[in-house]
């Protein structure tokens, strides 16, 4: 996969330097400097909140485009389960899957099929690791990054399994090699993604070294062509679907947890709600017999992703309706190909919010921050370019901002200056 770094980036010429994004960033990773937003990439978790909120469309997600299929002898599309909820009146998943082939892909492999295997592996892992209860789902890369940065005590609770999309990619490549005889590098694996965080995860995987996903496309980019192709193939779809209710349900909140076939779970969505759950979990406020926590950064789950088309709540209703026509699970179909899903690389705490690398220096800085905070008005107006007065104080201590960035302090400063000028000039 081409090295994208973080997916979310700024289109500088469209940025007006307003304070919307800095106020909505859950990790306070954005500042406005010299009239433009600047993202601290170390602290960015690719949640897409700034893309959602920016009234000037100045935030974008780096991603691949469909022309890239020409770089490969053979291309396979991996549709996220939430894609099925983007179109109206879908009663037969095969129509959508056949339409992807009509668009130019040589084959399709449902992420929902791999999700059913992950559900099965999760059931086993949860049952065998009571000491790690509650296990926290790791399907949303934004959530895993958030925990790595802000919740060091919860890193051990992460369910150490790869994402359904990654497993689907491995299996799709194996199947394509078997079917075509092409070498691995002649096969392009394209994930059709609801969100930028999956782009970043394909570039810098969590829990494993290299991703088998070659290119991540945005659902919203392929959507118009998909709808056209669906009209063409609707009368005569191929039998391509290999998953059931359990897999498809991963597209909405509660779907992953539901696949565990246990009542002892909590499922939450929306980044602020998720942070609240994690804070309480860290303080051991949840019952000790809780087995599992499913967390999704977006409202409604993956249907709420920032690269989707449909309203998340309407999409959720559609997915629930679609489920009715499906078998519970078709997990055996996907088990034809290797399905080992365990992480093989350590996922560690990333202390990006620490003030310094030793306690003495950190204490000194925290003390300076406290003192500076007393000088500021506490309005959190954002005019300085930081989301809160406290953040400005931190930035000053870090040496990347100055006190007069605060307009209240600047006003006093100018007032004193003009008084002095008056004195000197004898007015």
């Amino acid at each position, binding site marked *: 996969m081409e090295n994208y770094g973080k997916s979310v980036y700024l289109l500088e010429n469209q940025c007006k330097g307003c304070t919307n994004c800095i106020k909505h960033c859950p990790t306070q990773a954005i500042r406005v400097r010299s009239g433009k937003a600047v993202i601290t990439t170390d602290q960015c978790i690719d949640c897409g909140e700034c893309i959602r909120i920016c009234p000037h469309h100045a935030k974008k997600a780096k991603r691949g485009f469909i022309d890239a299929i020409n770089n490969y002898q053979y291309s396979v599309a991996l549709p996220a389960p939430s894609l099925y909820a983007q179109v109206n009146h879908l009663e037969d998943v095969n129509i959508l899957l056949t339409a992807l082939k009509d668009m130019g892909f040589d084959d399709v492999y449902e992420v929902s099929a791999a999700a059913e295997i992950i559900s099965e592996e999760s059931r086993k892992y949860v049952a065998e690791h009571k000491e790690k209860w509650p296990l926290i789902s790791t399907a949303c890369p934004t959530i895993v990054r958030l925990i790595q940065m802000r919740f060091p*005590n919860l890193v051990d609770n992460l369910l150490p399994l790869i994402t359904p999309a990654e497993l689907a990619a491995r299996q799709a490549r194996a199947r394509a090699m078997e079917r075509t005889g092409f070498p691995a590098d002649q096969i392009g694996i394209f994930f059709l993604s609801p969100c930028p965080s999956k782009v970043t995860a394909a570039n810098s995987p969590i829990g494993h070294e290299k991703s088998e996903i070659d290119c991540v496309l945005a659902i919203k980019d392929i959507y118009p062509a998909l709808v056209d192709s669906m009209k063409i193939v609707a009368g005569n779809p191929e039998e391509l679907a290999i998953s059931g209710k359990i897999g498809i349900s991963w597209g909405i909140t509660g779907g992953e947890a539901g696949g565990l076939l246990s009542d002892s779970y909590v499922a939450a969505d929306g980044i602020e709600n998720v942070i609240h759950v994690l804070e309480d979990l860290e303080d051991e406020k949840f019952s000790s017999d809780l087995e599992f926590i499913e967390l999704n950064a977006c409202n409604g789950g993956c249907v709420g992703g920032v690269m989707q088309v449909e309203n998340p709540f309407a999409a959720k209703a559609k997915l629930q309706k679609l489920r009715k026509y499906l078998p519970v699970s078709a997990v055996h179909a996907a088990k034809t190909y290797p399905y080992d899903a365990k992480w093989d690389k350590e996922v560690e705490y990333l202390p990006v919010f620490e003030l310094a690398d030793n306690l003495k220096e950190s204490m000194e800085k925290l003390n300076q921050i406290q003192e500076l905070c007393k000088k500021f008005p506490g309005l959190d107006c954002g005019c300085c370019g930081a989301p809160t007065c406290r953040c400005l104080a931190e930035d000053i201590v870090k040496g990347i901002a100055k006190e007069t960035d605060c307009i209240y302090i600047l006003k006093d400063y100018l007032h004193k200056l003009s008084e002095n000028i008056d004195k000197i000039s004898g007015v």
Partner: protein
Amino acid sequence: MADVLTFTYEVSDEDFTRAGEASSDVKKKLKKLGVSPDVIRRVSIALYEGEINMVIHANGGTITILISEESITMILDDKGPGIPDIEKAMTAGYSTAPDNVRNLGFGAGMGLPNMKKNTDSIDIETKIGVGTKVTMVINL
């Protein structure tokens, strides 16, 4: 140079759902300081339990946090009814919490035992009808 950082919190009993604000803020600060995750966990649990106790039993009070390079000291001072039998109160499962509090999932009788378990030292000064001062220390 700041040898000891001091933070003070007023714990109000007006709104039960606000209990935990002090421990949550202390937790944030400790993460900024780069204190080890295990110490952060112990501080936030001990402090949260203490904060809840102040709200349930003592109509609120004051929390003072002292952070030095060697230790974190948490002082919880209230003007509540005092603890008649400290030994009993330190027993796991012993509770005087009324039903409405238990129904919220609190009052399981783990407050003081949990505070003791998570700290390196705990000292309780209490006087019936005057108040209670709990001092907990976690060494760094």
